[in-house]
Protein backbone atom coordinates (compact mmCIF):
# COMPACT_ATOMS: atom_id res chain seq x y z
CA UNK A 1 0.00 0.00 0.00
CA UNK A 2 2.76 2.43 0.83
CA UNK A 3 3.94 2.52 -2.76
CA UNK A 4 0.60 3.51 -4.18
CA UNK A 5 0.34 6.79 -6.01
CA UNK A 6 -1.56 9.33 -3.90
CA UNK A 7 -4.02 11.44 -5.81
CA UNK A 8 -5.21 14.93 -4.98
CA UNK A 9 -8.58 13.44 -4.23
CA UNK A 10 -7.17 11.08 -1.62
CA UNK A 11 -5.28 13.87 0.09
CA UNK A 12 -8.37 16.06 0.06
CA UNK A 13 -10.44 13.22 1.50
CA UNK A 14 -7.82 12.81 4.22
CA UNK A 15 -7.95 16.54 5.01
CA UNK A 16 -11.76 16.31 5.17
CA UNK A 17 -11.73 13.32 7.51
CA UNK A 18 -13.32 11.15 4.83
CA UNK A 19 -10.72 8.37 4.77
CA UNK A 20 -10.57 5.44 7.11
CA UNK A 21 -8.79 2.14 7.48
CA UNK A 22 -5.80 1.35 5.31
CA UNK A 23 -6.13 4.44 3.13
CA UNK A 24 -6.10 6.77 6.11
CA UNK A 25 -3.05 5.02 7.59
CA UNK A 26 -1.25 5.19 4.27
CA UNK A 27 -1.79 8.90 3.82
CA UNK A 28 -0.92 9.62 7.44
CA UNK A 29 2.36 7.74 7.05
CA UNK A 30 3.20 9.53 3.81
CA UNK A 31 2.37 12.91 5.33
CA UNK A 32 4.67 12.22 8.25
CA UNK A 33 7.64 11.49 6.03
CA UNK A 34 7.06 13.67 2.98
CA UNK A 35 6.72 17.43 3.53
CA UNK A 36 5.31 17.90 0.04
CA UNK A 37 2.45 15.52 0.80
CA UNK A 38 1.85 17.28 4.11
CA UNK A 39 1.81 20.63 2.29
CA UNK A 40 -0.74 19.37 -0.25
CA UNK A 41 -2.99 18.18 2.58
CA UNK A 42 -2.64 21.52 4.36
CA UNK A 43 -3.58 23.31 1.15
CA UNK A 44 -6.87 21.39 0.99
CA UNK A 45 -7.54 22.15 4.65
CA UNK A 46 -6.89 25.84 4.01
CA UNK A 47 -9.22 26.05 1.04
CA UNK A 48 -12.02 24.47 3.07
CA UNK A 49 -11.50 26.92 5.91
CA UNK A 50 -11.34 29.89 3.51
CA UNK A 51 -14.65 29.00 1.84
CA UNK A 52 -16.33 28.42 5.19
CA UNK A 53 -15.10 31.77 6.51
CA UNK A 54 -16.11 33.64 3.34
CA UNK A 55 -19.75 32.64 3.82
CA UNK A 56 -19.88 33.13 7.59
CA UNK A 57 -20.91 36.82 7.26
CA UNK A 58 -23.87 35.82 5.08
CA UNK A 59 -24.95 33.29 7.70
CA UNK A 60 -24.84 36.05 10.26
CA UNK A 61 -26.72 38.67 8.23
CA UNK A 62 -30.24 39.57 9.27
CA UNK A 63 -32.76 37.69 7.16
CA UNK A 64 -35.05 40.05 5.20
CA UNK A 65 -38.51 40.17 6.85
CA UNK A 66 -40.15 39.31 3.53
CA UNK A 67 -38.43 35.94 3.56
CA UNK A 68 -39.51 35.11 7.09
CA UNK A 69 -43.04 36.17 6.19
CA UNK A 70 -42.91 34.03 3.04
CA UNK A 71 -42.18 30.98 5.15
CA UNK A 72 -44.52 31.71 8.03
CA UNK A 73 -47.20 34.00 6.75
CA UNK A 74 -48.66 32.28 3.74
CA UNK A 75 -49.94 29.18 5.49
CA UNK A 76 -52.95 27.41 4.13
CA UNK A 77 -53.79 25.71 7.41
CA UNK A 78 -55.26 28.61 9.31
CA UNK A 79 -58.03 30.99 8.31
CA UNK A 80 -56.57 33.87 6.33
CA UNK A 81 -57.79 36.57 8.69
CA UNK A 82 -55.65 35.15 11.50
CA UNK A 83 -52.56 36.33 9.66
CA UNK A 84 -53.68 39.92 9.90
CA UNK A 85 -54.37 40.15 13.62
CA UNK A 86 -51.52 42.05 15.20
CA UNK A 87 -51.01 41.10 18.82
CA UNK A 88 -49.30 44.37 19.54
CA UNK A 89 -48.65 47.59 17.72
CA UNK A 90 -45.34 48.10 15.99
CA UNK A 91 -44.41 51.77 15.58
CA UNK A 92 -44.66 52.66 11.92
CA UNK A 93 -41.51 54.78 12.01
CA UNK A 94 -39.38 51.94 13.25
CA UNK A 95 -36.89 50.16 11.08
CA UNK A 96 -37.38 46.47 11.47
CA UNK A 97 -34.64 43.95 11.09
CA UNK A 98 -35.85 40.44 11.44
CA UNK A 99 -33.25 37.93 12.41
CA UNK A 100 -33.67 34.23 12.36
CA UNK A 101 -31.11 31.98 13.87
CA UNK A 102 -30.42 29.08 16.10
CA UNK A 103 -29.11 29.37 19.61
CA UNK A 104 -25.47 30.02 20.23
CA UNK A 105 -24.47 30.09 16.60
CA UNK A 106 -26.68 33.07 16.05
CA UNK A 107 -25.72 34.86 19.22
CA UNK A 108 -22.06 34.20 18.61
CA UNK A 109 -21.99 35.33 15.02
CA UNK A 110 -24.06 38.48 15.06
CA UNK A 111 -21.62 40.60 17.01
CA UNK A 112 -18.91 40.73 14.40
CA UNK A 113 -21.17 40.92 11.39
CA UNK A 114 -23.44 43.91 11.84
CA UNK A 115 -23.21 47.19 13.64
CA UNK A 116 -26.09 46.49 15.97
CA UNK A 117 -25.36 42.81 16.22
CA UNK A 118 -23.72 43.29 19.58
CA UNK A 119 -26.91 44.53 21.17
CA UNK A 120 -29.02 42.06 19.23
CA UNK A 121 -26.85 39.15 20.32
CA UNK A 122 -26.91 40.43 23.91
CA UNK A 123 -30.69 40.94 23.92
CA UNK A 124 -31.39 37.47 22.53
CA UNK A 125 -28.81 35.61 24.62
CA UNK A 126 -29.56 32.92 27.17
CA UNK A 127 -28.85 35.27 30.08
CA UNK A 128 -31.88 37.31 28.99
CA UNK A 129 -34.14 34.39 28.07
CA UNK A 130 -33.30 32.50 31.26
CA UNK A 131 -34.08 35.58 33.39
CA UNK A 132 -37.38 36.04 31.55
CA UNK A 133 -38.24 32.38 32.15
CA UNK A 134 -38.43 33.12 35.86
CA UNK A 135 -40.43 36.32 35.48
CA UNK A 136 -44.15 36.91 34.87
CA UNK A 137 -45.23 39.04 31.90
CA UNK A 138 -45.20 42.76 32.64
CA UNK A 139 -42.38 42.55 35.17
CA UNK A 140 -38.99 43.93 34.16
CA UNK A 141 -35.71 42.13 34.71
CA UNK A 142 -32.28 43.71 34.41
CA UNK A 143 -29.30 41.56 33.52
CA UNK A 144 -25.81 41.96 32.17
CA UNK A 145 -25.52 40.13 28.86
CA UNK A 146 -22.49 40.16 26.58
CA UNK A 147 -21.36 43.50 27.96
CA UNK A 148 -24.75 45.20 27.71
CA UNK A 149 -26.97 46.17 30.66
CA UNK A 150 -30.22 44.78 29.28
CA UNK A 151 -33.66 45.51 30.67
CA UNK A 152 -36.28 43.07 29.45
CA UNK A 153 -39.86 42.06 30.05
CA UNK A 154 -42.23 39.54 28.55
CA UNK A 155 -45.48 40.99 27.25
CA UNK A 156 -47.45 37.81 26.64
CA UNK A 157 -47.28 34.03 26.71
CA UNK A 158 -48.76 31.72 24.08
CA UNK A 159 -49.22 28.00 23.75
CA UNK A 160 -48.09 26.82 20.31
CA UNK A 161 -47.92 23.54 18.41
CA UNK A 162 -44.30 23.07 19.39
CA UNK A 163 -44.25 24.37 22.98
CA UNK A 164 -44.62 27.75 24.64
CA UNK A 165 -43.60 31.08 23.08
CA UNK A 166 -43.43 34.51 24.71
CA UNK A 167 -43.22 37.92 23.12
CA UNK A 168 -40.70 40.08 24.90
CA UNK A 169 -39.10 43.48 24.71
CA UNK A 170 -35.51 44.31 25.57
CA UNK A 171 -33.63 47.57 25.67
CA UNK A 172 -30.19 48.84 26.46
CA UNK A 173 -28.85 52.37 26.16
CA UNK A 174 -31.37 53.61 23.60
CA UNK A 175 -31.49 50.40 21.57
CA UNK A 176 -34.71 48.45 21.51
CA UNK A 177 -35.68 44.97 20.41
CA UNK A 178 -38.84 42.93 20.28
CA UNK A 179 -38.47 39.19 20.05
CA UNK A 180 -40.18 35.90 20.43
CA UNK A 181 -38.61 33.36 22.73
CA UNK A 182 -39.77 29.77 22.65
CA UNK A 183 -39.17 26.57 24.58
CA UNK A 184 -40.11 22.99 24.04
CA UNK A 185 -39.28 22.28 27.70
CA UNK A 186 -35.49 22.35 27.47
CA UNK A 187 -33.89 25.77 27.15
CA UNK A 188 -35.12 28.82 25.26
CA UNK A 189 -34.38 29.98 21.75
CA UNK A 190 -35.18 33.27 20.01
CA UNK A 191 -36.29 32.30 16.50
CA UNK A 192 -37.37 35.81 15.49
CA UNK A 193 -36.50 39.30 16.69
CA UNK A 194 -37.06 42.79 15.37
CA UNK A 195 -34.60 45.54 16.05
CA UNK A 196 -35.66 49.17 16.13
CA UNK A 197 -32.90 51.51 15.20
CA UNK A 198 -32.99 54.98 16.64
CA UNK A 199 -31.50 58.10 15.14
CA UNK A 200 -31.35 59.26 11.56
CA UNK A 201 -31.50 55.86 9.93
CA UNK A 202 -35.29 55.59 9.91
CA UNK A 203 -36.70 53.94 6.84
CA UNK A 204 -40.31 53.00 6.31
CA UNK A 205 -40.85 49.53 7.67
CA UNK A 206 -42.06 47.10 5.07
CA UNK A 207 -45.48 45.60 5.53
CA UNK A 208 -43.84 42.21 5.63
CA UNK A 209 -41.68 43.44 8.49
CA UNK A 210 -44.70 44.65 10.46
CA UNK A 211 -46.37 41.31 10.22
CA UNK A 212 -43.35 39.05 10.48
CA UNK A 213 -43.42 38.53 14.24
CA UNK A 214 -47.13 38.05 14.33
CA UNK A 215 -46.95 35.78 11.33
CA UNK A 216 -44.40 33.72 13.19
CA UNK A 217 -46.86 33.11 16.02
CA UNK A 218 -49.57 32.25 13.52
CA UNK A 219 -47.16 29.92 11.79
CA UNK A 220 -46.53 27.94 14.95
CA UNK A 221 -50.22 27.75 15.77
CA UNK A 222 -50.32 30.20 18.67
CA UNK A 223 -53.69 30.98 20.19
CA UNK A 224 -54.51 33.82 22.60
CA UNK A 225 -52.48 34.77 25.66
CA UNK A 226 -52.66 31.94 28.20
CA UNK A 227 -53.26 34.44 31.05
CA UNK A 228 -51.52 35.30 34.31
CA UNK A 229 -52.55 32.27 36.35
CA UNK A 230 -51.53 29.72 33.74
CA UNK A 231 -48.29 31.57 33.17
CA UNK A 232 -47.49 31.66 36.90
CA UNK A 233 -48.16 27.94 37.02
CA UNK A 234 -45.77 27.29 34.13
CA UNK A 235 -43.03 29.42 35.72
CA UNK A 236 -43.41 27.40 38.92
CA UNK A 237 -43.08 24.16 36.98
CA UNK A 238 -40.05 25.36 35.02
CA UNK A 239 -42.07 25.45 31.77
CA UNK A 240 -42.31 21.66 31.67
Amino acid at each position, binding site marked *: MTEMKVTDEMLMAYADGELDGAEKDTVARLAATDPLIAARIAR*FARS*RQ*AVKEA*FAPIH*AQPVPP*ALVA*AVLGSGGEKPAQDNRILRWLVPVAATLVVV*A*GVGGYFAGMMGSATGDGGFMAAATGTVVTDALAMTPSGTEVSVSSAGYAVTASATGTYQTDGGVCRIYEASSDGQFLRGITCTGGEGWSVPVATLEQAGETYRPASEAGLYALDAFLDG*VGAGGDIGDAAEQDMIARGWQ
Partner: protein
Amino acid sequence: MSAEIRHEMVALLPRLRAFGRSLTRNSADADDLVQLTCEKALGALSSFTPGTRLDSWLFRIMRNLWIDQHRKARSTVTVDDAAIAETLVGDDGRTITEARMELGAVGDAMADLPEEQRTVLMLVCVEGMRYREVAEMLDVPIGTVMSRLARARSAIAAALEGEPLPATVDVER
Protein backbone atom coordinates in the same frame (compact mmCIF):
# COMPACT_ATOMS: atom_id res chain seq x y z
CA MET B 1 -46.41 19.09 11.50
CA SER B 2 -46.51 21.92 9.00
CA ALA B 3 -45.95 24.49 11.75
CA GLU B 4 -42.87 22.63 12.95
CA ILE B 5 -41.43 22.50 9.46
CA ARG B 6 -42.05 26.22 8.94
CA HIS B 7 -40.28 26.86 12.20
CA GLU B 8 -37.32 24.75 11.06
CA MET B 9 -37.30 26.49 7.69
CA VAL B 10 -37.01 29.89 9.33
CA ALA B 11 -34.02 28.63 11.28
CA LEU B 12 -32.49 27.39 8.01
CA LEU B 13 -32.97 30.72 6.17
CA PRO B 14 -29.44 32.04 6.81
CA ARG B 15 -27.98 28.85 5.33
CA LEU B 16 -30.41 28.88 2.43
CA ARG B 17 -29.41 32.47 1.69
CA ALA B 18 -25.72 31.56 1.66
CA PHE B 19 -26.34 28.63 -0.65
CA GLY B 20 -28.51 30.81 -2.87
CA ARG B 21 -25.75 33.36 -2.93
CA SER B 22 -23.24 30.79 -4.16
CA LEU B 23 -25.59 29.96 -7.02
CA THR B 24 -26.77 33.41 -8.12
CA ARG B 25 -23.75 35.50 -7.09
CA ASN B 26 -25.83 38.49 -6.01
CA SER B 27 -27.93 39.01 -2.92
CA ALA B 28 -31.17 40.22 -4.50
CA ASP B 29 -31.36 37.25 -6.88
CA ALA B 30 -30.33 34.95 -4.04
CA ASP B 31 -33.21 36.11 -1.84
CA ASP B 32 -35.65 35.75 -4.72
CA LEU B 33 -34.39 32.21 -5.20
CA VAL B 34 -34.67 31.45 -1.47
CA GLN B 35 -38.25 32.73 -1.44
CA LEU B 36 -39.16 30.66 -4.51
CA THR B 37 -37.56 27.65 -2.87
CA CYS B 38 -39.55 28.09 0.34
CA GLU B 39 -42.80 28.60 -1.56
CA LYS B 40 -42.16 25.54 -3.68
CA ALA B 41 -41.24 23.48 -0.60
CA LEU B 42 -44.34 24.57 1.33
CA GLY B 43 -46.47 23.62 -1.66
CA ALA B 44 -44.87 20.20 -1.79
CA LEU B 45 -44.61 19.29 1.89
CA SER B 46 -46.28 15.96 1.24
CA SER B 47 -43.23 14.89 -0.77
CA PHE B 48 -40.91 15.52 2.17
CA THR B 49 -40.11 12.33 4.07
CA PRO B 50 -40.27 13.00 7.84
CA GLY B 51 -37.06 11.96 9.55
CA THR B 52 -34.89 12.84 6.56
CA ARG B 53 -32.82 15.99 6.34
CA LEU B 54 -34.92 19.08 5.70
CA ASP B 55 -31.83 21.09 4.75
CA SER B 56 -30.77 18.65 2.01
CA TRP B 57 -34.30 18.59 0.66
CA LEU B 58 -34.42 22.40 0.49
CA PHE B 59 -30.97 22.67 -1.06
CA ARG B 60 -31.98 20.21 -3.75
CA ILE B 61 -35.17 22.14 -4.51
CA MET B 62 -33.20 25.37 -4.69
CA ARG B 63 -30.55 23.98 -6.99
CA ASN B 64 -33.13 22.49 -9.35
CA LEU B 65 -35.00 25.81 -9.46
CA TRP B 66 -31.82 27.69 -10.20
CA ILE B 67 -30.78 25.29 -12.94
CA ASP B 68 -34.20 25.66 -14.54
CA GLN B 69 -34.03 29.46 -14.37
CA HIS B 70 -30.46 29.53 -15.60
CA ARG B 71 -31.29 27.31 -18.53
CA LYS B 72 -34.07 29.70 -19.54
CA ALA B 73 -31.81 32.71 -19.11
CA ARG B 74 -29.10 31.15 -21.20
CA SER B 75 -31.45 30.50 -24.06
CA THR B 76 -31.99 34.23 -24.39
CA VAL B 77 -28.53 35.53 -23.49
CA THR B 78 -25.55 34.39 -25.45
CA VAL B 79 -22.73 35.97 -23.48
CA ASP B 80 -20.80 33.66 -21.19
CA ASP B 81 -21.09 33.75 -17.42
CA ALA B 82 -17.96 35.71 -16.75
CA ALA B 83 -18.95 38.44 -19.19
CA ILE B 84 -22.40 38.68 -17.60
CA ALA B 85 -20.90 38.96 -14.16
CA GLU B 86 -18.62 41.75 -15.32
CA THR B 87 -21.12 43.84 -17.21
CA LEU B 88 -24.67 43.50 -15.94
CA VAL B 89 -26.12 45.93 -13.46
CA GLY B 90 -28.73 44.76 -10.99
CA ASP B 91 -32.19 46.27 -10.55
CA ASP B 92 -31.04 48.19 -7.53
CA GLY B 93 -28.22 49.85 -9.45
CA ARG B 94 -25.46 47.88 -7.80
CA THR B 95 -23.36 45.74 -10.05
CA ILE B 96 -23.51 42.01 -9.89
CA THR B 97 -19.89 41.96 -8.87
CA GLU B 98 -21.20 42.91 -5.42
CA ALA B 99 -20.91 39.20 -4.62
CA ARG B 100 -17.24 39.35 -5.28
CA MET B 101 -16.72 42.33 -3.03
CA GLU B 102 -18.61 40.80 -0.18
CA LEU B 103 -17.20 37.31 -0.39
CA GLY B 104 -13.69 38.53 -1.04
CA ALA B 105 -11.07 36.59 -2.94
CA VAL B 106 -12.96 33.35 -2.35
CA GLY B 107 -16.10 34.74 -3.94
CA ASP B 108 -14.05 36.04 -6.83
CA ALA B 109 -12.52 32.63 -7.43
CA MET B 110 -15.85 30.84 -6.97
CA ALA B 111 -17.58 33.05 -9.52
CA ASP B 112 -15.33 31.58 -12.17
CA LEU B 113 -16.17 27.97 -11.27
CA PRO B 114 -18.88 25.96 -13.00
CA GLU B 115 -22.05 25.47 -10.98
CA GLU B 116 -21.33 21.78 -10.32
CA GLN B 117 -18.11 22.69 -8.57
CA ARG B 118 -19.59 25.61 -6.61
CA THR B 119 -22.37 23.39 -5.33
CA VAL B 120 -20.13 20.62 -3.99
CA LEU B 121 -17.82 23.25 -2.53
CA MET B 122 -20.72 24.81 -0.60
CA LEU B 123 -22.21 21.54 0.55
CA VAL B 124 -18.93 20.15 1.84
CA CYS B 125 -17.01 23.19 3.05
CA VAL B 126 -19.82 25.45 4.29
CA GLU B 127 -22.55 22.94 5.11
CA GLY B 128 -20.17 20.27 6.39
CA MET B 129 -21.91 17.48 4.51
CA ARG B 130 -20.13 14.15 3.97
CA TYR B 131 -19.11 13.22 0.42
CA ARG B 132 -21.61 10.35 0.53
CA GLU B 133 -24.44 12.70 1.55
CA VAL B 134 -23.59 15.09 -1.27
CA ALA B 135 -23.48 12.23 -3.77
CA GLU B 136 -26.94 11.07 -2.65
CA MET B 137 -28.34 14.56 -2.73
CA LEU B 138 -27.06 15.30 -6.23
CA ASP B 139 -27.64 11.75 -7.44
CA VAL B 140 -24.11 11.36 -8.80
CA PRO B 141 -21.35 8.85 -7.93
CA ILE B 142 -19.14 9.73 -4.97
CA GLY B 143 -16.14 9.80 -7.32
CA THR B 144 -17.79 12.60 -9.27
CA VAL B 145 -18.29 14.58 -6.06
CA MET B 146 -14.64 14.13 -5.17
CA SER B 147 -13.27 15.12 -8.56
CA ARG B 148 -15.48 18.26 -8.71
CA LEU B 149 -14.53 19.15 -5.16
CA ALA B 150 -10.80 18.62 -5.69
CA ARG B 151 -10.82 20.84 -8.78
CA ALA B 152 -12.78 23.54 -6.98
CA ARG B 153 -10.52 23.42 -3.92
CA SER B 154 -7.38 23.61 -6.07
CA ALA B 155 -8.79 26.65 -7.88
CA ILE B 156 -9.64 28.38 -4.59
CA ALA B 157 -6.24 27.60 -3.13
CA ALA B 158 -4.47 28.88 -6.24
CA ALA B 159 -6.52 32.09 -6.17
CA LEU B 160 -5.72 32.70 -2.51
CA GLU B 161 -2.02 32.06 -3.01
CA GLY B 162 -1.98 34.55 -5.88
CA GLU B 163 -3.57 37.22 -3.72
CA PRO B 164 -1.27 39.81 -2.19
CA LEU B 165 -1.54 39.76 1.57
CA PRO B 166 -2.91 42.93 3.10
CA ALA B 167 -0.62 44.99 5.33
CA THR B 168 2.53 43.27 4.20
CA VAL B 169 5.20 44.45 1.79
CA ASP B 170 5.26 42.79 -1.58
CA VAL B 171 8.71 41.21 -1.73
CA GLU B 172 8.20 39.34 -4.96
CA ARG B 173 8.71 42.14 -7.42
